[in-house]
Structures are given as structure tokens and as C-alpha cells.
């Protein structure tokens, strides 16, 4: 068990190296030039040279890359080129905002969608099933952007149930976050219910279900005690990969509702060539992604005795 975990953690190293190379090449060699963005078109050569020296961009590329690797190991990516803020602090505050935007609808949506999917699976083959499956496809055919625009317009602007946009720190954020939460949940219903339904229907054909029915367990009992437990394994594998990305927030939401989370920080960092921000964020996501994959596998092995770790 411990050996397995150590081995899996070692596997993360080549992945991190790969991501480091890609990010370095994309932004350092071919991407937007941050010095140009900061100083504008008419900067003097002296000013350019000074700023390059200050940011370490005058060093040879291999040295910059080694520096990047050192940053990865020490978890210290320095300061943002443009705000001068220490990245550890900028990430901590931004991540908190982003999580408050994405985590509640993630958890709530998971519960709601599983309940709906179970109801549909219970009524499989009836008009309820056909109607909901059709509704799911229809809801998936509308662009995310349209959901945001329409719901912001009708619920916030016309009906004034929610503030149109903005953000306040602490608990005061809730009125501002309520509508984005609602939109995230609404958008997730179609695709998630559909996949959970498939998972439930799939479990219903398993042998253990036939056995349970044969020994006289009621249909509801089969669904809630037997099927739900087994279906949680594929449901968890499907949902848990999304968790590392929750911290990045939802950049579209953050843009439309002026929420100061990490998603918007990332987009503006790309536009400005704010390399330290991008390096830090990407590496963070890569590591959490790998760790969460490991956690998923461990969880599955813990709940499903048929799975052997090797």
C-alpha cells in the first residue's frame, strides 16, 4: 500500500517535467513579451534592458529553465510582473474566492443530479425517462454563454432577485454568489444527470441486482442500498477529476459577475505575459490533479474489494 503510494507519487515527476517544458516553451519562447506589454511600444532600449535584467529575462534560456525547476521544488514562484504581489498571497486570496464560487454548486449539484438520475432510473422506460432524457439533450444544446447572459438578464436585471454583479469579502459575498451558483448548477443538470442515469442503468443489469430481487428486496431497496453504493464508484471517478480545477474558479462567471477569483487572474496573466503567475498556477493545478487521481484510485480500492492496487 505504502509502496504503491510512493511509486505513484514518483510517477508525478515526469508529468511535472512535461508540463514545465510545455509551459516554458509556450510562454517564454513564443508567447507574449511581458516587457513590451509593461513598457509599451515606445520604450527605450535601456528601459527594456533594465526590466529584462530585473525579471531575469536576460539570462540564457537553459538557466531560466533551471530557475523554473528550482521554483517548482521550493513552491516559490516569486512576484507577479505587473501587480508586484507575492504570488503565494495572490493565490491564497484568489483561490478562496474561486472556491467559494465553485465548491458549493459542485457539492449541491452532485447531490441534486444523483437524486434526479436515480428517480429517472427508477422510472426507466416510462415517459418520465424519455421526457427527461430529451430535456437533458435540449439543455446541453444551449451554449454556456447563453445561460449566463439570459439568467443574468432576467433574474438580476429584470426581476432584480440578485445583484447584477460585484463581490464583497466574507459572508457578504453570498448574495453576489447566489446567481452564479444557480447558473453552475443549472448548466450541470443536463450532462451530469445523463451520465449518472447511464451509470445507474448499467448497475441495474449486474448480477447482484438480480440476486437481491430474487431474495425479495423491494425495487426501492435495491436502488437505494445495493445500486447506489456500487454506482458511487463510477460517479466518484467521473466527478473527482473536476475537483483540482475547482480552485481555478469559473473564468466566464468571474468575468460576467466581476468576481475576483483565480480564473480571471489567469486570463489576464495570459494576455499580459505575466509568466510567474502562469507558471505558479499551472504547476499548482498539475500537482493537485495528479494527487487527486491518486486519491481517487485509493478511494476506489478502499470501497471496492475487487480492485487490487499494483
Amino acid at each position, binding site marked *: 500500500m505504502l509502496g504503491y503510494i510512493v511509486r505513484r507519487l514518483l510517477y508525478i515527476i515526469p508529468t511535472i517535467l512535461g508540463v514545465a517544458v*510545455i509551459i516554458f516553451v509556450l510562454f517564454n519562447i513564443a508567447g507574449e513579451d511581458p516587457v513590451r506589454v509593461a513598457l509599451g511600444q515606445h520604450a527605450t532600449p535601456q528601459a527594456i534592458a533594465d526590466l529584462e535584467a530585473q525579471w531575469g529575462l536576460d539570462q540564457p534560456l537553459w538557466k531560466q529553465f533551471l530557475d523554473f525547476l528550482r521554483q517548482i521544488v521550493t513552491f516559490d514562484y516569486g512576484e507577479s510582473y505587473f501587480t508586484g504581489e507575492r504570488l503565494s498571497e495572490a493565490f491564497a486570496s484568489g483561490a478562496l474566492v474561486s472556491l467559494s464560487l465553485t465548491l458549493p454548486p459542485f457539492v449541491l449539484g452532485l447531490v441534486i443530479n444523483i437524486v434526479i438520475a436515480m428517480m429517472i432510473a427508477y422510472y426507466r422506460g416510462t415517459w418520465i425517462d424519455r421526457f427527461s432524457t430529451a430535456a437533458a439533450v435540449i439543455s446541453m*444544446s444551449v451554449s454556456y*454563454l447563453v445561460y449566463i447572459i439570459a439568467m443574468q438578464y432576467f433574474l438580476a436585471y429584470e426581476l432584480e432577485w440578485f445583484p447584477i454583479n460585484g463581490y464583497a469579502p466574507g459572508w457578504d459575498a453570498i448574495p453576489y454568489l447566489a446567481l452564479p451558483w444557480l447558473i453552475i448548477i443549472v448548466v450541470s443538470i443536463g450532462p451530469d444527470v445523463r*451520465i449518472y442515469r447511464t451509470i445507474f442503468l448499467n448497475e441495474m443489469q449486474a448480477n447482484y441486482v438480480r440476486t437481491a430481487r430474487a431474495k425479495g428486496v423491494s425495487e426501492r431497496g435495491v436502488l437505494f442500498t445495493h445500486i447506489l453504493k456500487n454506482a458511487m464508484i*463510477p460517479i466518484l471517478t*467521473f466527478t473527482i477529476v473536476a475537483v483540482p480545477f475547482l480552485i481555478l474558479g469559473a473564468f466566464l462567471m468571474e468575468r460576467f459577475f466581476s468576481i475576483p477569483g483565480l480564473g480571471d487572474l489567469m486570463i489576464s496573466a495570459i494576455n499580459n505575459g505575466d509568466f510567474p503567475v502562469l507558471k505558479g*498556477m*499551472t504547476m499548482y493545478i498539475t500537482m493537485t490533479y495528479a494527487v487527486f487521481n491518486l486519491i481517487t484510485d485509493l478511494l476506489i480500492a478502499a470501497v471496492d474489494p475487487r480492485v487490487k492496487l499494483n
Partner: protein
Amino acid sequence: MTRVHNLYWEAAQKLSRQKLVVICLGIIAVYILVAVLGGFNVLPDYQTRVGAQYEAPSLELAKLLGTDLFGRSVLYKILAGTKTAMLIGVLVTSISVPIGVILGALAGYYGGLVDVGIVWLYTVISSVPYILMVIAISYVIGKGLVAICLAMGLLGWVGLCRLIRSEVLKTRNLEYVAAAKVIGANDLQIIFSHILPNVIHLAIISASLQILGAIKSEVILTYIGVGIQDGASWGAMISDATGELVQGIWWPLAGVVLVMFLLIYSLNVVSDALRDALDPKLRGTTEVAEGDAQFEAQEAAVQKA
């Protein structure tokens, strides 16, 4: 080969028996026609003024969906955007699907170091935030239509590659592959003429999903400013419409949303039907449902872009 022909022939027959699927195929055909006409420049020019600023929809053809800020026809602009949307769908898919199929087949068939390398590559790609990679790659190539298509295409193959790899892994030890080896077929012959025909339906299903995914992503990319810089695009129209809505001008948004919905819905219905029809095994076995779940996960990821 007969087996393959039968599978696709039966699938086509199955599809043609479903009314909704036939209607949706018809709708897709109309979009393709509009896109081709747009490509030959025979559609009315959307840049021409047809009336005053922001005229509400009326029964005149050019003003069927009203006019925009510059008095141009919203309908013509949407028709011109159709070409862009279809082009993006086709371009992205024709990059990502071949990569997914080839890398998946190589990884599954050869195993060993080849497999390790390919798995490493897609692990790296899927552990970087998608939107960051798309924006970065499109910057490198130089913003615009081709750039975002390349970016989406170069990143979009991971799901299909995984699926093909695991299917090929199961297939490569089957008796017919061993038989092909015995009669002296080389690796390439085995992969291309013996194994791939048995897994290629996955690529077809995946392609139909990629097309609609790409069209949806373009709208979002254009909204955040990395997509289409000039020319007609549904994404640009939707982002313009955000401000107009508050002034009570709803028709540009309504028009483009409706047109986009019809296309995406039809593609959704057809790809579902394809999935049902092309499953060579009996429905209900776990393997098939696993594939189902994977495709639906792919779609879910697209929806939440």
C-alpha cells in the same frame, strides 16, 4: 471486411428508421449547404446596410431577424457565421480524430515504451487547464480562426486516444489477430486492416461529438478575445448582444441562439443515434456502457468547457 460493411449498413438502416434522427440529419445538411454557399461567396453580403440601426424583425427577408448597430441584416450575419462555425467543427475534428486514433492504436498495440510515452503525453496535456493551453497555443500561432482550430485540435484527441488504446489492448490478443500474424501480416497491416476496422466506430462517434464541442468552444473563446478577430462569428455576435440586451434589443441574440441551438441539438441527436447504432456488441453489457459513460463524460466536459 463484410462484417464491417454489415455493421455500417445496419447502422444506416437503423438511423433512417428514426424520424427525429432523419429530421436532424436534414437540418445538418441545410447548415452544410449554407456553409458551402458561404464558401463560394454566393450568400448576400452581411456587411451591406439593409436598413436603419436596430430595426426589429419584420417579414422582409433581410430583416427577418432585424438589423444590428450598423443597420446590417442579422440574418445575413448569422448565415455568414454558419460557414465559420462549420469550418471550425470540421477543421478541429480532422486534426484531433486522426491523432487520437493513430496514437491510441500505437499505444495499445505495441505497449511497452511506446505506450508509456503516449500515456505520458496525454497525462501531461490533461493536467494543464484546457483553456490556458488553448489560449497559449493560439497566441503562439497567431490569433484567429486557424490558430484556435489548431489549438483545439492538438488538445482534443486525449479522450478518443484513451478509448482506442483500451479497445486495442483488448483486441490485440484475440484469435483473428494471431491468425493474421500466422499468415505473415506485418504490424502495420495488422493495425490498419485488422484491428482498426473493429474500433473505428469509436472514432466516428467521437468525431460527431468533437464537431459540436468545437463549435461551442469557439463561441466562448471568441467571447474572451482569442477566437475570431474579424469576419462573422456566432461567438462575436453573442458577446456583442450582451450589451444590446439591456437596451431592449433582443433579436440579434435570439436569432443567433436559435440558429446555434438547432445545429448543436441536431448534432447531439445524431451522435446519440450513432452511438446506439454503431455499438457492435449487445446493449447492456458493461463494456458498452463503459464506453457510453466515457462519451457522455466527454460531452459533459464540453458543456462545462
